[in-house]
């Protein structure tokens, strides 16, 4: 069958006067700039210095949200696919514990595994990623093979993984980690890891079949199946990828803190979801961009460091953050509706 040989029956009309539409990311970027400018202004008024023109502050700002950003790259894909993942924060804790326990030096008498000290750095790294991957695999398999909705399935993994993180050392923190391991989280390495991850998945989502299928499933799952996509397999794959990224986030977290603690990553799942949603990913599925999520993450970071800069109480920070998230979701709904009229 050669359609191209068929004579074209007519040209599709191309009316001129195409109204220029800003891409969604551009609008989110404006929001980021707006937030930064507000802090700049308040900075001059209340603190008497510039908020933006301070390299250290900018680096710290990105550093503190890098881990959230790494998680958000995975969570964005899940939300685009029409799902949700509540387990990421707990997975960070569990991975942090497991990988830290394999990164201890022999100088320490009370190591978790006294026979497994001074391992090459690849060991804790691989173990951490594996733990994340397995958690994601469990999420994906339960969601694909049963009728349990993602919210509940990942809630189960969230509680279980947190419990396992505590059980792992009976709540004891793990310390005395090797320098090589600590190097993973040192300096601006977390930022680099975050940006590289984001870039890689931006490319994957835009230019590979994996990406196209992710959007299609989120846009219309039944139609995706009829179009020949193995929906269940793809669900498992995407949840696994997100788990892997949570695992990576756990490794970075423990390396940066040079310790593993069962309380790590608390509520990170919500920050990651917030970053994605603020960045324009629709909770209805089928819509979203990694670039948007990166900007969303930076908006969260700017707010946190802005409040700190203005010496505003942490409590207020959370209140404002909550409001911003709701506003972002409302804005999404509004956009969806507006498109139709």
């Amino acid at each position, binding site marked *: *069958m050669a*359609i*191209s040989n*068929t004579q*074209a*029956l*007519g*040209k*599709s*009309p*191309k*009316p001129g*006067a*195409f*109204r220029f*539409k800003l891409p969604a990311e551009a609008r989110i970027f404006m929001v980021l700039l707006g937030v930064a400018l507000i802090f700049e202004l308040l900075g001059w008024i209340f603190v008497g210095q510039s908020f933006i023109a301070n390299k250290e502050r900018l680096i710290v700002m990105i550093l503190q949200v890098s881990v959230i950003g790494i998680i958000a790259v995975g969570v964005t894909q899940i939300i685009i696919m029409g799902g949700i993942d509540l387990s990421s924060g707990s997975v960070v804790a569990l991975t942090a514990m497991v990988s830290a326990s394999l990164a201890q030096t022999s100088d320490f008498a009370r190591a978790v595994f006294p026979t497994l000290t001074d391992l090459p750095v690849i060991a804790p790294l691989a173990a951490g990623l594996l733990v994340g991957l397995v958690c994601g695999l469990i999420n994906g398999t339960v969601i694909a093979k049963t009728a349990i909705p993602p919210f509940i399935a990942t809630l189960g993994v969230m509680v279980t993984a947190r419990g396992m993180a505590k059980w792992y050392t009976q709540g004891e923190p793990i310390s005395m980690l090797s320098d090589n391991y600590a190097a993973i989280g040192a300096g601006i390495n977390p930022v680099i890891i975050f940006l590289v991850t984001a870039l890689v998945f931006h490319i994957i989502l835009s*230019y*590979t*079949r994996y990406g*196209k*299928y992710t*959007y*299609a499933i*989120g*846009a*219309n799952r*039944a*139609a*995706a*199946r*009829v*179009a*020949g*996509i*193995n929906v269940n397999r793809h669900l498992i794959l995407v949840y696994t990828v997100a788990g892997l990224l949570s695992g990576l986030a756990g490794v970075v977290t423990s390396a940066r803190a040079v310790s593993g603690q069962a309380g790590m990553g608390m509520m990170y799942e919500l920050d990651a979801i917030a970053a994605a949603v603020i960045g324009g990913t*629709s909770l*209805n*599925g*089928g*819509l979203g961009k990694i670039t948007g999520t990166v900007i969303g993450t930076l908006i969260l970071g700017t707010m946190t460091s802005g409040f700190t800069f203005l010496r505003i109480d942490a409590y207020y920070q959370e209140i404002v953050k909550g409001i911003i998230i709701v506003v972002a979701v409302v804005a999404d709904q509004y956009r969806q509706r507006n*498109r*139709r*009229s």
Partner: protein
Amino acid sequence: MLSLAPEKPLTTALSQPPVAAQQLLIDVQGVRKAFPGVVALDDVSFRLRAGSVHALMGENGAGKSTLMKILAGVYTPDQGVYRLHGREIALTSPLDALENGIAMIHQELNLMPFMSIAENIWIRREPLNRFGLIDHARMYQMTRELFAQLSIELDPQAKVASLSISSRQMVEIARAVSYNSDVLIMDEPTSALTEHEVAHLFRIVRMLREQGKGIIYITHKMNELFEIADEVSVFRDGHFIGCKQVEQLSHDEVIRMMVGREITEMFPKTIVPIGEVALEVSHLTLDGVFHDVSFSLRQGEILGVAGLIGSGRSNVAETLFGVSPASSGQIRINGQPVTIDSPRTAMQHGMAFLTEDRKDTGCFLSLSIQENMQISVLGGDNLQAGFVRQQALDAMCEAMSGTLRVKTPNLDERIENLSGGNQQKVLIGRWLLTNPKILILDEPTRGIDVGAKAEIHKLICKLAGQGVAVIMISSELPEVLGMSDRIMVMHEGRVTGIVDRADATQVSIMTLAAG
């Protein structure tokens, strides 16, 4: 102005004295509506008389649905005057329109699948008991009364998800009628109905006309126009071409007004050499849905499938394609027995399946036309080192939408913004791109205008000529009769006959379809 208060029995509500026949219900003038990149309507006028059926015709993307959405408060026009009962009005929402006595049945179905039929019909108007809670018994009773009046036989408590697409359409119609509004807009209501239900719908429409209501009726089917409409307004590319009394018009004149040129052949069937058996189905059964379906299909052959609501036509197609795998029976492709447990495996065997409901199982509404069209060919040659070869795909989709005449400023536009008929063309394009050996089409020309329809028929014949085996389900008897080499007729989940082209007539098919 919801005149149908729950406590008022329907019979009295629906039999109010007719309004003076010549009274103008709706009078719009100089309406303009633009979307980014397209002017959907430009200086359009339209008037609707009470007690008449006013048909709207025009090619896909002519602006019919857009105008109706303006009348029903979904869109606000950029320019123009809208008079209702002679008073100028600016509607703010569909709800506002309903309260002003304008109800609309949209081109795509809008029911909530996991709610009952009754809940769907009376949503926002549920009868309450004295505790202020919903009185379900009364609601079912009201639904039964409504259905009795419209002669619809459906269980008010059934979930919409369990209904066939045509039954859903009947529920939509009943819901619109239940508002007892002065103006009822129907956007291609019959595209999902079989002849039998079309006749039923027409009885309802005539009853409403008797009651002095104004009905706007969009259709692409010429015979319906002459059967039901009093007046017709024709649109082309966002412009109003003319409004005529139907008696003064001939078939050809309408087409000329619509497309601005002649269309000679309606079903350009070409007889092509029939090859080997491509598909052989024996005793195929899906428990509780259809039983013991057997037929064979050869390369180059077009097998039409006819039947009424609930005859199981679409279910057989779904099972062949692995959407809902068979409970028993055998499928052979090119002589080899195969197990088809998912659409994916069906595609690996060279099958393609255009589904009946483009909104539910066809379109990815939030994605672009391009992404919708290419989704089933993201493999093989179109992948290079794991990356999608976007340029090659772009070129393929560009060519395909040229062939199918998809009307859009560019392929990056969201499919949601296309007119219904153009969405259908994109989905046809999706499956043609897969180069199928066995092509299953469920209502292929649903919502497609006369001109494009003839072209799609030509295309199907051309594919058959290249050895593709085609199964074509259609509710339009002329289409089935005109295109098929053989026609399989189903009734209540069983095959009641397979008729050769030479022996098939409207009557013989209808008799078999009635069981």
